[in-house]
């Protein structure tokens, strides 16, 4: 008797955007397993052509509704590097704080609303409200704190309005920051409880390892998010300006998103990559969280990405308090922004929740953009998802799982990467013959 298992998930749920999983197998042998991205390309790099340097961050921040702060910062850094603009220490601190806010916001969204239902064995976060209301309320509370940080720093929770080339149009005041610090302090306990909730259900995370390359920003001074050098677990440190030799973008017929590869067939970016590269720089409480889950670098289990995100939530909260202390002790002042427009090329690179992000702009002498390139974290993960599936699917079939179980396990694998698919389909060079 031949046993066929066919999985065809058209538009996997609980991820951002549209992706398909296709698996055909016969008698326990995989005939085809494929991760497809069918979403329409979005042409952002073309949209910004001819635009003034002051407009670029506002436009490119729309690439993503979740990591819009990261896109804004990458864009501003690229513009500032192209024109040789120096930012003040105060601006640097405020930007780092905003990035932490987004990191917490995005990670808690993923772990709390998208991954937790798998751990609790339900279809979405809504049934959880009936069965585990307290857990959901705690998750929402952490999310709320993250929104408060983003709102205070950026003028709103997504798509910043206060961040501009060279600095800020409006900075938070002393009282606001003091209040924010007390809010972080009181939410720290809740975050710890969320960690315990996930820990109690962590046995649902599959044991699956595949050695791969991990790429992310790395720095000698801190757990790098805003600035640093490109680090690889395979090849060490690289200058940011060499990013094209790291990403090596290529296209495949079944995906509107570009794929990337560096030292191996694929590499992974995101919380787990950052953890593997920089875990020694984590703050103490975050390190405790990692210990609780037995998470140690290097970890080759992609499902542990969600756990690395939990670790980063706690780290970002600790670091936010440190930054606020520093801001309060040095005093806040309204700074004047002065810009000399000139021609040049600049590369902006920041760690956004899903991994390392590059914006690369070239300007003419009037400050008009003539060439732009954005490399999105999810792009860099697509190839790794595919490679993981190629190894994971046969293992699932061998263990005699049913079609439904195989489907769920593959979905969980994709979800673990926290893909932001719409962001990744920004450009495709189509050639008609």
């Amino acid at each position, binding site marked *: 008797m031949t046993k066929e298992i066919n999985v065809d998930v058209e538009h996997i749920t609980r991820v951002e955007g549209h992706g398909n999983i296709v698996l055909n197998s016969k008698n326990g042998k995989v005939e085809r397993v494929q991760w497809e991205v069918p979403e329409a390309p979005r042409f952002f790099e073309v949209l910004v052509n*001819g*635009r*003034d340097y*002051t*407009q670029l961050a*506002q*436009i490119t921040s729309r690439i993503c509704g979740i990591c819009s702060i990261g896109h804004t910062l990458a864009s501003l850094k690229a513009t500032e590097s192209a024109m040789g603009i120096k930012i003040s220490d105060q601006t640097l601190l405020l930007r780092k704080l905003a990035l932490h806010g987004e990191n917490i916001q995005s990670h808690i969204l993923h772990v709390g609303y998208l991954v937790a239902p798998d751990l609790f064995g339900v279809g979405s976060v809504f049934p959880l409200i009936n069965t585990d209301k307290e857990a959901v309320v705690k998750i929402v509370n952490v999310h709320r704190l993250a929104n408060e940080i983003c709102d205070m720093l950026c*003028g*709103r929770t997504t798509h910043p*309005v*206060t961040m*501009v080339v060279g600095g800020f*149009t*409006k900075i938070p005041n002393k009282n606001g920051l003091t209040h924010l610090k007390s809010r972080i302090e009181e939410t720290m306990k809740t975050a710890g409880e969320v960690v315990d909730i996930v820990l109690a259900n962590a046995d649902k995370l599959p044991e699956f390892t595949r050695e791969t390359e991990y790429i992310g920003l790395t720095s000698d001074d801190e757990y790098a998010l805003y600035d640093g050098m490109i680090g690889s677990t395979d090849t060490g440190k690289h200058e940011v300006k060499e990013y094209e030799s790291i990403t090596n973008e290529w296209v495949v017929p079944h995906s509107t998103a570009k794929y990337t590869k560096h030292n191996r067939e694929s590499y992974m970016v995101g919380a787990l990559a950052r953890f593997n590269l920089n875990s020694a720089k984590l703050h103490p409480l975050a390190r405790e969280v990692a210990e609780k889950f037995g998470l140690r670098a290097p970890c080759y289990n992609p499902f542990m990405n969600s756990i690395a995100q939990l670790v980063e939530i706690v780290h970002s909260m600790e670091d936010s308090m440190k930054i606020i202390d520093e801001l309060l002790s040095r005093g806040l002042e309204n700074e004047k922004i002065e810009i000399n427009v000139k021609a040049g090329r600049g590369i902006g690179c920041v760690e956004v929740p899903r991994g390392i992000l590059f914006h690369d702009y070239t300007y003419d002498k009037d400050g008009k953009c003539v060439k732009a390139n954005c490399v999105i974290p999810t792009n860099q993960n697509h190839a790794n998802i595919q490679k993981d599936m190629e190894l994971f699917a046969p293992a699932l079939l061998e263990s005699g799982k049913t079609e439904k179980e195989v489907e769920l396990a593959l979905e969980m694998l994709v979800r673990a990467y926290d893909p932001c698919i719409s962001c990744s389909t920004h450009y495709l060079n189509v050639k008609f013959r």
Partner: protein
Amino acid sequence: MALTGIKITINIDGKDYVCDPGETVLDVAKRNNIDIPTFCYNPLLIEYQRLGSCRLCLVEVISGGKPGLQSSCTLPVSTGLAVSTHSEMVYQARRSVVELLLSEHVMDCCNCGVSGNCIFARMCRDYDINGTPVCAECPNQKEGCLLQRNTLCLGPITYSGCNAYCTRKGYRCEGCFSMVQNEDILRFGLKAYRDGGFSADEILNAARIFSFDRIALLEKVMKEEGFE
């Protein structure tokens, strides 16, 4: 001229309110924090001086009186009177009233003293009318207009309704509520840009992001104004 001792009950939006004879529906509504917009109303005017001339306070009489629209500032309370302050009929009528009032209004919001606290801007927001530019809602007249800080803000030529979200935070208006189609407002806006020393190219480039379909209108007005 309230008569002592006698009380009347009227019904506003399905809820009963006790009031004195001689009061108007608007008096009762204001006392009970029911939102009825007014323009010509002044609490210093006594009853017979109220003319109901702006027509913004229209309410719909449902029962206990002549059915239909009446101005609440001139409608005396009577036993069994029931009115609606926000029915579809009221909404549409008020909307038309605001549109008519705006047609005669000089929209030089950039230089207007009540910008940031403008009743027209509020009405446009509440009744979904594309009438006033962002400047009408923007408080920066008091704290320093972005145009004077050499920032190309599209507020003067962009429809209000956002409550000046970005300009309040010091960020220039990008024009996401789309460009106004009223040529007079555009002219006032261009005057502000000329004073700020901005070139036609800069303005067109900025306006193209959200108002690509209206660029022809802007170019036409620019030409008429001799804008370089």
